[in-house]
């Protein structure tokens, strides 16, 4: 059989394309088939290289190191997602997954964001005392900074404020449960 496209060489490849014109079947020679292959690849690359693909790659390279020694496969008790599923989708299943896979996720987060600790907004209700804790943390950082700059008056102010807030925390203790 001769190639459907060039009609010169022996057809060695059979391809089926499904496109806007329905199903198209062709028998092609090696040179012509190579052209099709390139077409398909370049067409897809422009469109489909997304953050998801990227993540999938990171996920799987991550597991090879982190999850392999564990042996048994870890699944989320809430939504039933396994770590394998991440490698395929690059998406997390539910809020409980973060707890389940914390060990595997933390190095990944450091790689994406350069950090694995949240320093932003804290929800007022479910955040509980966390907001207070975070304020104290920032004040401590400022305290250290002002001591380094030898601005002792300012430092004293920060110190008093921290004491005040820590007192508040002591008082509230026992009131609220765990965040999660």
């Amino acid at each position, binding site marked *: 059989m001769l190639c459907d496209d060039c009609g010169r060489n022996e057809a060695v490849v059979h391809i089926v394309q499904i496109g806007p014109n329905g199903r198209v079947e062709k028998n092609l020679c090696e040179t012509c088939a190579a052209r099709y292959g390139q077409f398909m690849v370049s067409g897809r690359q422009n469109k489909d290289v997304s*953050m*998801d693909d990227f*993540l999938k790659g990171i996920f799987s390279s991550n597991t090879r190191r982190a999850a392999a020694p564990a042996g048994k496969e870890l699944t989320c008790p*809430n*939504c039933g*997602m396994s770590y394998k599923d991440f490698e395929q*989708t*690059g*998406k*997390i*299943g*539910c*809020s*409980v997954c*973060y*707890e389940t896979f914390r060990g595997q*996720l933390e190095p*990944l*987060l450091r790689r*994406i*964001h*350069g*950090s*694995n*600790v*949240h*320093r*932003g*907004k*804290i*929800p*007022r*209700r*479910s*955040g509980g005392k*966390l907001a207070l804790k975070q304020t104290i943390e920032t004040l401590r950082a400022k305290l250290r900074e002002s001591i380094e700059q030898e601005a002792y008056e300012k430092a004293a102010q920060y110190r008093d404020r921290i004491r005040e807030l820590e007192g508040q925390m002591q008082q509230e203790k026992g009131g609220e449960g765990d*965040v*999660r």
Partner: protein
Amino acid sequence: MSVNDLMRSRTLKWLNTGGNNGDVVLLSRIRLARNLRQIPFPNRADYNALAQVELQLDKTIPQIVEGLGQPFDRLDMEHISALQRQVLIEKQLISSNLVKNPQHRIAYISDDRRITIMANEEDHIRIQCTLAGFDLDHAWRLASDIDDCIENQVNLAFDEKMGYLTSCPTNLGTGMRASVVLHLPGLVYSRNMDSIVNLSPQLGLAVRSLFGTKENPSCIYRISNQLTLGLSEEELIENLKSTVNEIVAHERAARKALLYYMKDDVEDRIWRAYGTLRYARSLSEGELFGLLAKVRLGLDLKIIDEVSPECYGELLVGGRTSYLRNFAENENLSANEVDRLRAAHVRETLTRHRIGREE
């Protein structure tokens, strides 16, 4: 406002000119990703779970309406046509992720169109606030207030160490994406844009060209933060703001240089673009974006003075293909028919915005 008005309206408040640094910064946007505790994220949820999210979010809306003092339109993606969904995407009122599977996907859009709350997009809840000009702080406060209001009524997924939990780990922590849309004809025409695009990843920012093509650059770029964890929202916004300020300064310098070194050529190109828009009988979408970029530059440089700058935002909305198809109430219009309709629309808009000359 009815769904029909929402589809047919050609004005979007945040596309108006005259915002802060409005000659370069078209709009500022804050998007927050939030999820409910325990319920599987939308990509893993069954209809039952999705319906639960829908129900919970429905209940939070009255308090938001009360707090903001303006009504919201509730649009169920399953109950509007595919074309209508496309119009909403074109107008940037919803994201394309929301309509991949329309079941239980809801958009609540505020009366002034600045706020959209989406249910069951990539995350359970997405809050999006868009303001005209360079106004990220205000947009962040608005989004954060709505977030507080929702958080008061539902249990959000939050972890002490990892912050707000999101479906995609790239949004984890603050769940915030801050972005500004810039019009950069000076940098594009003086061929300086590549260096800015190449530089931004080092600053933790992403620059993306919107609309347009290589031959017909729209000169519109979106720049947004890439990191969401490890820094506070204010720090992330500050980082974006300082970079944008830098770009704005470069853009103004580039425009000045263009005017100084090749004034005649610049004027000629701007007026030709304006003339084409005013009289063309058929315009493709790409061509429209390319010409609009020059006309907008002409308006900013006060070279074109016979139409009001408001026409720019209207053309950006009313010149889009899905908008026109929906307007003609015929989703099967051929490309040629759409191009003719587009040209007619552009002519009509420019005539309506013409500033009467007394003398």
